[in-house]
C-alpha cells in the first residue's frame, strides 16, 4: 500500500444504485501519485460509473471518494481544477476547429492571453496537431480526434487524468503512440486512471483493478495478481504447447486428468496442469491424435489468464449463490 501522502485517488465502499440496480457495489482502492492505474472489466460492469463518481459528476449512493485528499462530493470545486477527463466519445465541438477547441478548453479553466497561447502551443507540440489547427473537429479521423480530446483534457495541467477507453476504435499505431505519451506524463508525476479492454495495455499499467458484476474482484500490481493462488494454484504449472492442429490438440487435452484448463492462444495452446503430469505424457497424448513434435515450454500466467480465471470463478460463485 502506498503511503497516505502519496495517494492521489482513493475510494472507500463506493456504491452507486440506480433504483434497484446496483451499478457499483462497495468498491475500494487507492492509486498513488505518478502511477498508471488500469481499470478493467466487461462491458456494463460499472467502469464508467466509477470514473464519473471520481470526477464528481455522479453522486455516489454510498461510500466516499477523494482526489488528492479532497472529498469529491463536499469539495467538488477543488477537485475540478485537479482533474482532466477524456470520455469514451472524445467529446469535442465539431463546429469548432482544432485550435478553437483547445482555446475553449483553456478558457474554461480560466487560462487567458499569453498563458493560454503558451499552453496551447505546448499541447500542439506534444500531440503533433499542427497540420490540423484550422480543420474542423468534425473532419478529423478517430486517432486525431482522440489526440485532440486528450490535448483539451490536459490544457489546464491536471494532476490526475481520467481516460475512459481512450483507445477504443483507434488503430494500433495511434494506440502505441498514446501509451508512449501516457508513460511520459506518468514520469512527470501525473496520475493516470485508464479503462481499457486490451490486455496488452493492462500489462503496461503499474496497477490494475478488475471489476466484475459491479464488484472489484482484484486490485494490485500485475505481477502480484499473477501469483494469486486462484490463478497459479500450488502444485500446478502453465505450459505453452505449440503444434499443428491446435483445436484437435485442445479437444484431446481437455479430457486428460490433471489438466485443469486448456485455452487456445493463436498458434499455440496454454495448459494449466498438475505438477504430476510430465511433458512426455503430453507428447504421448498428442501423438495418439496424430500430432507430432509439439514444442512445449513452461510459461508464467498472463493478465488475461488472471481475468479469465477470476471471471470463471466469480461466475460459478454467483450461480451457486443463486441456486
Amino acid at each position, binding site marked *: 500500500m502506498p503511503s497516505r501522502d502519496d495517494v492521489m485517488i482513493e475510494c472507500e465502499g463506493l456504491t452507486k444504485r440506480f433504483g434497484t440496480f446496483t451499478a457499483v457495489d462497495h468498491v475500494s482502492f487507492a492509486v498513488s501519485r505518478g502511477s498508471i492505474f488500469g481499470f478493467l472489466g466487461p462491458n456494463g460492469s460499472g467502469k464508467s460509473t466509477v470514473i464519473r463518481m471520481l470526477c464528481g*459528476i455522479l453522486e455516489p449512493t454510498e461510500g466516499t471518494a477523494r482526489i488528492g485528499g479532497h472529498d469529491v462530493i463536499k469539495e467538488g*470545486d477543488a477537485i475540478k481544477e485537479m482533474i482532466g477527463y477524456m*470520455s469514451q466519445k472524445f*467529446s*469535442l465541438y465539431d463546429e*469548432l476547429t482544432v485550435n478553437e477547441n483547445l482555446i475553449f478548453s483553456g*478558457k*474554461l479553466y480560466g487560462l487567458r492571453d499569453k498563458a493560454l497561447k503558451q499552453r496551447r502551443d505546448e499541447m500542439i507540440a506534444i500531440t503533433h496537431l499542427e497540420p490540423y489547427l484550422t480543420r474542423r473537429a468534425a473532419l478529423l479521423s478517430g486517432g486525431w480526434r482522440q489526440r485532440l480530446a486528450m490535448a*483539451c483534457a490536459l490544457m489546464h495541467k491536471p494532476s490526475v487524468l481520467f481516460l475512459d477507453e481512450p483507445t477504443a476504435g483507434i488503430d494500433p499505431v495511434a494506440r502505441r503512440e498514446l501509451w508512449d505519451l501516457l508513460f511520459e506524463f506518468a514520469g512527470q508525476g501525473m496520475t493516470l486512471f485508464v479503462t481499457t479492454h486490451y490486455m496488452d495495455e493492462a500489462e503496461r499499467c503499474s496497477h490494475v483493478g478488475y471489476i466484475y458484476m459491479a464488484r472489484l474482484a482484484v486490485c494490485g500490481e500485475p505481477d502480484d495478481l499473477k501469483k494469486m493462488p486462484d490463478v497459479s494454484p500450488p502444485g500446478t504449472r502453465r505450459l505453452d504447447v505449440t503444434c499443428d492442429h491446435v483445436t484437435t490438440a485442445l479437444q484431446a487435452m481437455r479430457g486428460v486428468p490433471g489438466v485443469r484448463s486448456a485455452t487456445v492462444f493463436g498458434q499455440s495452446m496454454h495448459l494449466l496442469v498438475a505438477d504430476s503430469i510430465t511433458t512426455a505424457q503430453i507428447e504421448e497424448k498428442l501423438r495418439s491424435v496424430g500430432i507430432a513434435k509439439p514444442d512445449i515450454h513452461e510459461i508464467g500466467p498472463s493478465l488475461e489468464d488472471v481475468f479469465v480465471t477470476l471471471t470463471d470463478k466469480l461466475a460459478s460463485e454467483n450461480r451457486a449463490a443463486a441456486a
Partner: protein
Amino acid sequence: MKAHPFRGLRAILFKEFIIVWRDPMTLFFMFFPPLIQMIAFGYALDNDVKHMPMAVLNEDRTAESRRFIERLVNTETFRMVGEVQNVEALASEIRKGNAYVGLQIPPHFTRDFRAGYPAQVQLLIDGSNSTTALQALNAAISVGLSQSMEMALRESSRRTVPIEVRPQMLYNPTMRSPNFFVPGVIGIVLQIGTTFATAMAVVREREKGTLEQLLVSPLGRWGLMLGKLVPYLCIGMAMAILLFVIMRFLFNVPIAGSVMALMISSVVYVFALLSLGLLVATKAENQMQALQMSMTFMLPSVFFSGFIFPRETMPWIFYAIGAVLPATYFIDLMRAIILRGASVLEYWPSLAILTGLAALLFCVCALRFRTKIG
C-alpha cells in the same frame, strides 16, 4: 474553495458565438419560418370583411327597392352576385356557398311603406362564421335604419335626427385589423423562433456528451446558462427588429410610441422566452422532446394571451393561464406602445411583470440545472 457562479462565461460565449455562426441550419430555422409566419399571419388575420357575396330576390321591382339594394352595396360590405327568382333558389345559393347573404324584398315593399305600414325585407345570413355574420347583420340593420330615418324626417317637420352619435376612433382611426393584430403577431412569432433555440442548444450538448465534459470543468451553472442565452438573445433581437420593420413598412402600421421602449420590451421578452427554452432543456432528454416541449407553450400563448380573443371575457382558469405567459404582457406592451403611444408611466406594470417573469424563469432554470448526471 467555491467557484465563481459565472465562471467560464467568457469561454461559453466564445464557443457559442462561433457555433451559432457556423450552424446555418439553426440560423435558418430561427429566421425563415418566423418571417414567413409574420407575413402570412399579418395578411390572414384581417377580419375586415368587405364585399360579401349577396344574392337578391327582388319581387317588388320598383325604383325604391332598387335604391335599397344599391345602398347596401354602397356600404362596401356587400356585392351583388346575382338575382334569383324564388325563395328556394335564394336558400340554395347560400347553401352552395355562392352567396354569403340572401336578400328578399317582398312584392308589396314600396306599397306598404308608402301606405304607412311597416315594410319588411328578409335577410338570410350564413351564420357559420359569427364574426362576419355579425358584420353583415350590423351593416344591413344600419342601412335599414338610416333609410327609415330619412323617410320619417321627410314626413315630420324635424330637420335633424333627435340624437346623433358622433363616434371618434382613437388610436386606430381607420379601424384596420393589421394595426390590432400585427403587433400581437410579432409576440407569437418571436416565441416560435426563439424558445426552441436554447432548448436545443443545451440538449444537443447532452446528446453529444460535451455537456459531461463541461460538468467536469469548474464552469459555474450561471455562467453556462447565461453563455447559452446571450448569443440567441442577439439573434432574437435581430429578428425582432426585422419584424418591426416589416410591420411598419409592409403592413403600414405606424408606431405611435417610443422605439426605444419597443426595443427594451423586446429584449426582456426574448430573454424570458430563451430562459423558458433553458428550462425545457433541464427536463428534455433529446432534441425531439425539447422541440415538442417548446411547442407546448405555443397554443396557450396564441389563445390565452389576448392575441386574438380578449382575455377579459375568458373563464377564470384561462385568464389565470394567460397571466403567467410572457406573451400576454409583451402583446399588451406592443399595443400600448405601437397603437396608443403610451408613455412609461402608463405601461410600466406590464413591463415590470414581464421583467419579473424573465428573471424568475432564468433563476429557476439555472437552479434546476443539474451539475450532476444520472
